[in-house]
């Protein structure tokens, strides 16, 4: 059961912890705990499994949706509308009433790599991971699809999937969107402390990486440890296309990054703790994520560089071993209803991937309906790049080169 009523005290604690820990900040802590998880997963996989055996077939096990009216859904932390008073999820409750399917909803994904490390061994062996929907960032979703860990969606059961905004219909990791539907998306771009950049640079907002790398900000900036976001912004700044680049262009961006690290311009390559550093004033400007920085308040600003930032999505996907596929598809269909999508978007400030939700949002909160970060125009969407799809080999090589540039 998802909605167990909380005592007022417990609800207060939940509220406090929610306010204090945003999703991205939780990643930080999760990354640390993740080592143990990865070690455990690795140990579990080291025994009897035969990794050379063929990957599980993408059709998956028999669907028990008709007999078991349940769906198990794993999502990122703080990624669904919630009633702060009761701890219940309003849209999810309505789905349960309408469909008669009970949803076991868990916000237990904190980090793509960590989550993958946790369930990899079971997926390899074709065992259930007790989840019917997981939400994964683009490249990780691509990795699951490539490894045969995802089931093809039956779009005839998800008629609302036609509402997916055009910009996200064509993605390189899942060409015709056979396996995934975006849950939410966001941008990586420039985040800054407004008084801080006024002092240092005499401007009110950052518009270019030239400003980020201005010597006046030496030692006061951070970039993301997420390779795709940082490298995407740098490649775009160098005039290259992060969604279609060559090895040489990547090297060129690595060289620029290494230069800024070696000369002390970049103070830290941060996971999610960049937000805390931005808040305390130790750091004045960052390459960061839209929803995060916008949530900080008046003194902070976020903008996409003129050369372009990156656009990422977190995608719903049905694992290869899920046994409630039809129920999962019904749930996806429900959340692609514009009215429902608008309700979710009103709570989480990330990009809403559903056409028509903007109009529905007008009724809820006109101000949010005009937010360029929740409902960007096509022009705004096109100004951001979706990072090129990488082969496994490329991914490994680029990750290594990136880590080497940032000090490993």
């Amino acid at each position, binding site marked *: 059961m998802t909605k167990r009523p909380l005592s007022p005290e417990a609800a207060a604690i939940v509220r406090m912890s929610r306010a204090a820990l945003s999703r991205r900040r939780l990643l930080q802590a999760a990354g*640390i705990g*993740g080592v143990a998880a990865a070690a455990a997963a690795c140990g579990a996989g080291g025994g009897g499994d035969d990794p050379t055996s063929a990957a599980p077939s993408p059709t998956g096990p028999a669907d028990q949706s008709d007999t078991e009216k349940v769906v198990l859904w794993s999502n990122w932390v703080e990624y669904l509308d919630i009633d702060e008073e009761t701890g219940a999820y309003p849209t999810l409750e309505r789905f349960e009433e309408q469909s008669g399917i009970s949803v076991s909803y868990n916000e237990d994904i904190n980090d793509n*790599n960590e989550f993958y490390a946790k369930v990899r061994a079971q997926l390899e062996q074709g065992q259930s991971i007790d989840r019917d929907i997981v939400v994964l960032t683009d490249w990780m979703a691509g990795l699951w699809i490539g490894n045969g860990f995802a089931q093809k969606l039956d779009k005839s059961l998800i008629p609302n999937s036609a509402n997916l905004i055009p910009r996200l219909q064509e993605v390189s990791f899942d060409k015709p969107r056979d396996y995934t539907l975006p849950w939410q998306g966001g941008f990586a771009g420039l985040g800054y402390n407004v008084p801080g950049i006024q002092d240092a640079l005499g401007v009110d907002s950052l518009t270019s990486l030239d400003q980020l790398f201005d010597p006046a900000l030496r*030692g006061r900036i951070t970039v993301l440890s997420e390779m795709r976001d940082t490298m995407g912004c740098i490649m775009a700044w160098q005039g290259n296309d992060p969604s279609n680049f060559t090895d040489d262009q990547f090297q060129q961006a690595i060289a620029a990054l290494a230069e800024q690290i070696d000369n002390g311009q970049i103070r*830290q390559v941060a996971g999610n703790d960049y937000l*805390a550093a931005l808040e305390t004033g130790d750091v004045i400007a960052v390459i960061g994520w839209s929803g995060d920085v916008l949530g900080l308040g008046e003194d902070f600003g976020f903008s996409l560089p003129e050369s372009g930032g990156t656009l990422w999505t977190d995608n719903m996907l049905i694992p290869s071993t899920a046994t409630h596929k039809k129920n999962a598809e019904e749930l996806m269909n429900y959340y692609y209803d514009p009215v429902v999508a608008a309700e979710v978007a009103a709570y989480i400030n990330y990009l809403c991937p559903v056409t028509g939700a903007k109009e529905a949002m007008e009724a809820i909160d006109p101000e949010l309906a005009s937010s360029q970060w929740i409902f960007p125009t096509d022009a705004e969407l096109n100004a951001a790049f979706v990072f090129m799809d990488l082969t496994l080999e490329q991914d*490994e090589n680029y990750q290594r080169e990136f880590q080497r540039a940032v*000090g490993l």
Partner: protein
Amino acid sequence: MPAIVPTTTAKTDAPAASSGSSQRRSRTAYLLLLPGLGWLGVFFVIPIATLFFTSLQAPVEGRSGVYQAAFQISNYAQALGDYWPQFVRSFIYAGLATVLALVIAYPLAYFIAFKAGRWRALMLVLVVAPFFASFLLRTYAWRTILADEGAITTALNALHLLPEDRILNTSIAVVLGLTYNFLPFMILPLYASLEKIDPRLIEASGDLYARPFTGFRKVVFPLSLPGVVAGTLLTFIPAAGDFINARLLGAPGDSMVGTAIQVNFLQFRDYPIASALSFILMAFILVVVFTYIRRAGTEDLV
């Protein structure tokens, strides 16, 4: 454990000829060992054997993060070749932190052991108190303490003492964080060995015309050596493997072996290299520890 069990059964099977009390006592001793040995077997021997086999695995062609059993010793060469700067850095940082911790801890432990009087228990509680908060939180707190606009950094900057105008996100911060986090591991063994010293010995050194410093050098310090050795080991070993301090307090160039292991496990999904790194770190630490114990010559420590 397997080495022990047959011995016990052999003894049990032995004709009850001399089932004297001494034999029964030794059997009880072995029985008492069982829980500890079982624990070690399940949570140490098995994981470390798994880790060892993982460190020799080879990647499966074309599939990321999937490995098969092999005997790829080159993993070790690769790990060492790629990450030797991290090893060097880990040992330097851990060494500095150990020395700093010793310098800070010795006077404190001395004071608690000899001068604290009725405050002794309270002071010991205070030494241990930081453990009540999570390691991670305490390290985060240092980010606030060392913040650019914080009192410490501002004061030191006014005196022009900082090469980079800041402490946070420099190697200084990493060493300070390591020192702080493992300080209690230095204080407690030092206190334990100092506290055992008979104060009459110090008086006797005075009676024999040793000045206080000579008395300390010739009597107190040699007697506290087991504590010094235990304390330095308990500080150095975890500090060398730590990655939190480098990650939260360091700059990009401050990564340690722990960071390399973490990144290989999680980011690269390169479990063999990460395991090989763990084993190399373990081997290095063992070498350092054995050399150190031989040098320090405190056989009675173990």
